[in-house]
């Protein structure tokens, strides 16, 4: 297990609201775009050493909160079938910038396997966005 190479994914967004509003919204399952929002089954206890469980389309996700520092930072572990048994870490920071908040999400400790960084899954990202003729065009250019 220790031989698995891991990678880190960093995503940043500027949100038009204060850090407190954004922080609170991120932990609110009713807000679209939070990982908890689409859960078919959800258990969420966002306190240090509190756990979460959510499942979507039968895929379970588990984690333990390791930092809940309102309004600056939320950190928790993250395990799912896609982490191949590794306990990955999600660290989200909220920094005020003028009237906005710069939100930075770092998901580290992800297995860099064919399953994680697969061409097929990468393509799905675009296939969700593009109509069929784009796919046809890209295939013919191979």
């Amino acid at each position: 297990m220790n031989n698995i190479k891991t990678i880190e994914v960093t995503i940043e967004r500027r949100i038009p609201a204060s850090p407190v509003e954004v922080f609170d919204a991120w932990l609110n399952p009713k807000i679209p775009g939070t990982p908890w929002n689409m859960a078919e089954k959800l258990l969420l206890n966002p306190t240090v050493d509190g756990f979460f469980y959510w499942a979507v389309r039968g895929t379970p996700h588990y984690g333990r909160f390791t930092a809940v520092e309102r309004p600056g930072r939320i950190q928790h572990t993250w395990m799912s079938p896609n982490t191949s048994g590794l306990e990955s870490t999600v660290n989200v920071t909220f920094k005020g910038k003028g009237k906005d908040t710069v939100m930075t999400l770092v998901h580290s400790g992800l297995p860099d396997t064919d399953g994680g960084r697969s061409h097929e899954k990468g393509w799905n990202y675009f296939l969700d966005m593009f109509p069929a003729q784009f796919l046809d065009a890209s295939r013919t250019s191979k």
Partner: protein
Amino acid sequence: MFSMEQLTDVLSAVSHPTRRAIIRRLANGPARFSDIAEPFDLALNAVTKHLKFLERAGLIEREKRGREVLISLRPEALRLVADWVHEYERFWNEKLDEFEGYFKQQKRSKK
């Protein structure tokens, strides 16, 4: 062959929702500048900047046909990104786009 610098350019280009919307539009076929700019509530020079960004990344090309300049998608460059998009990168990008969209909607409805 694509270089790592080109990969960085393509990743930067697709990181912005407006540029992704432009790519989506061009996936339907070549378009004129005015057709691309029309759906956006943006100044024309802002659309020009986005197009330059996409052009620098090799994602679009311009072709003069008579009096018109048609802009079209070059999907080859996207395959480069697809090879590098981690499943969780896709997941979090979609989530945060949705999250940001919620706040923008809230802000518009407050006006």
